[in-house]
């Protein structure tokens, strides 16, 4: 518990703000970029000890705590394994995910789903394609959907949020009203509606539908922290020094506002993957299943769910594990970057 007679806890918070404000280069990069030389920063418990590491940036100190946080490490491990799997999937998968290898064994009435056997550890789907290979190769499209949806949402939100936060005044009001209306539509409902516009649904319409939903969230988040930055001393100092307005926005305000946005994007990758599954479930997903994607596999399995639940369970488990990985990572990042938790 913080001791009110010891001013260090308060100072810590100010240090955190000052340090992160003083070094935009470090704060702009992701947490992983600032490793080294910052061990045992926040662990000094000597009551009378004066801290000499005041210049350590928020990210550096966050990293020193994250390295010892099992929740973060599990999340990082899952995410890392998922990305590696996505990269090397075609070389790992035992079969071609689009080949209908067990098509001959399918009897629409008696045996619609071929069972597991030697070489096909999870059996095949309703047109004889190896589930195991499809799951492995599916990691690639799943990662693509998650990352691209987040990326587009981020770009849209950054643009709107920067405009609103940088100009303030009536520009801020107009942009934020639009954002408020977008937020007032229940999120997935908006995604469903946008996906329904697509005359020819494809992977990219799914990605865009999910991304649009994220735009207002990112915009609000960024605008909030930009406004806080606007009122901060270092921006005032820059202005007093006669720094150009554009330089203030892009070099002083934006980099310092990115912390919560980075955390949010980690979490959005997870929701994007889950949302893609929901779109497929309603038949608004990508109809082309030659390149498998987990959400699509899960959505397609609903017609066999009572007789062959395994068909749904495998892709669902993959989604849950990966979404959990990103969420664990994002949540522990959020906690680590919160100056208040820096004790």
């Amino acid at each position, binding site marked *: 518990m*913080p001791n*009110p007679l010891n001013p260090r806890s308060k100072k810590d918070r100010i240090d955190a703000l000052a340090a992160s404000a003083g070094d935009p280069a470090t704060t702009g990069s992701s947490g992983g970029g600032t490793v080294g030389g910052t061990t045992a920063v926040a662990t000094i418990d000597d009551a009378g000890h004066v801290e000499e590491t005041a210049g350590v940036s928020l990210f550096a100190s966050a990293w020193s705590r994250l390295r010892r946080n099992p*929740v973060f490490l599990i999340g990082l491990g899952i995410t890392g394994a998922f990305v590696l799997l996505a990269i090397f999937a075609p070389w790992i998968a035992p079969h071609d995910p689009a080949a209908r290898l067990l098509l001959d064994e399918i009897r629409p009435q008696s045996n619609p789903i071929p069972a597991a056997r030697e070489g096909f550890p999870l059996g095949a789907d309703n047109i004889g394609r190896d589930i195991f290979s499809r799951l492995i190769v599916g990691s690639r499209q799943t990662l693509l959907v998650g990352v691209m949806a987040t990326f587009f949402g981020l770009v849209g939100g950054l643009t709107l949020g920067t405009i609103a936060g940088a100009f303030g005044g009536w520009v801020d009001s107009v942009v934020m*009203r*639009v954002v*408020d*209306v977008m937020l*007032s*539509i*229940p*999120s*997935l*409902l908006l995604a*469903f*509606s946008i996906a*329904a*516009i*697509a*005359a020819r649904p494809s992977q990219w319409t799914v990605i865009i539908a999910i991304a649009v939903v994220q735009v207002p969230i990112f915009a609000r988040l960024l605008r909030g922290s930009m406004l806080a930055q606007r009122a901060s001393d270092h921006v005032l100092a820059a202005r007093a020094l006669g720094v150009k307005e554009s330089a203030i926005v892009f070099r002083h305000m934006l980099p310092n506002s990115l912390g919560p946005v980075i955390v949010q994007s980690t979490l959005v990758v*997870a929701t994007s993957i*889950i949302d893609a*599954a*929901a779109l497929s*479930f*309603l*038949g*608004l997903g990508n109809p082309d299943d030659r390149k498998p994607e987990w*959400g699509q596999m*899960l959505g397609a399995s*609903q017609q066999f*769910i*009572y007789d062959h*639940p395994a068909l*749904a*369970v495998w892709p*669902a488990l993959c*989604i*849950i*594990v990966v*979404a*959990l990985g990103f*969420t*664990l990572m994002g*949540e522990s990042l959020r906690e680590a970057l919160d100056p208040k938790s820096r004790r």
Partner: protein
Amino acid sequence: MLRFIIRRLIQMVGVVIVLSALVFAWLKVLPGGTVGALLGERATPERRAAMEKALGLDQPIYVQYWEFVKRAVRGEFGASTSVQPGTDAMDVFLTRFPATIELAVCALVIAVLLGVPLGYLAARRRASWFDNVSIVSSLVGIAVPVFFLAFMLQYVFAVKLHWLPVSGRQDPDVNGTRVTGFFILDGLLTREFDASWNAIKHLILPSIALATIPFAVVFRITRASVLEVLDEDYVRTAESKGLTNRVIRGRHVLRNALLPVVTTIGLQTGGLLVGAVLTERVFSWGGLGDALALAFTRRDYAVLQVCILMATVTFVVVNLLVDIAYAVIDPRVRTR
């Protein structure tokens, strides 16, 4: 206080106006346009032209928008094409509304009754095994696709174990008297308690499936909020004054910590609606969510229009009420 409410009401009207324009624009860009959407596979060039004239689509766009608004205010959205063919879309909405409210309220009650106490306990025992286990399980709850959870609950407890009914809101042979459209309430009002009980049994699985995400959110917000309040100076003051733990916890901690939770509950109504789209489809619940899911898959644009507009308006109104409630509980909000 009155000024606060009036200001929020004006804001809300603005949101609804922009929203109507968005829905109108959305109808314009749908594949095949409004006519294609209404005629579907029956579209021929002659029928198209006749329909366009009948609907006033040869008029300038602002006239069309004005007509759209007039019809929307009167609740005329045309007949449903595939969800309940031939029925007026507004009637589809009205008859299905109670089913969804019943489910959503039940899910919300579960979420709050579990989420708030567990969140409070987790915060008080910060970093204990109880805290860690409940945090991780709330994160798992968020990571599970809602419809998959619904399917699994249905598969295990209804299809395999036969403990609870598989789908629907009531067994067809119960045949309860309809008064309000809320089946549990109807049974109580007409003293057909077996009908109520039957409806409750049908409600259990869908509301658990629907409650997971709101539960996880309420739990986490409560925990974070209690942690923050426990750290406040006024709690320390209360402790040093020698107040009893009960007074401190009830009056100083819980009361202040619940403020953000109230807002969150308002925001969850949107999530509940989306969750209902997925959950109701799995359980063939016959509510709005079910209608929306079917309307999206089968492209019933009349039903989609009504449901999206009304759902969003409901969401906006609920959040307005929550904001007002918030201002009543916390006077500091009014001045902002």
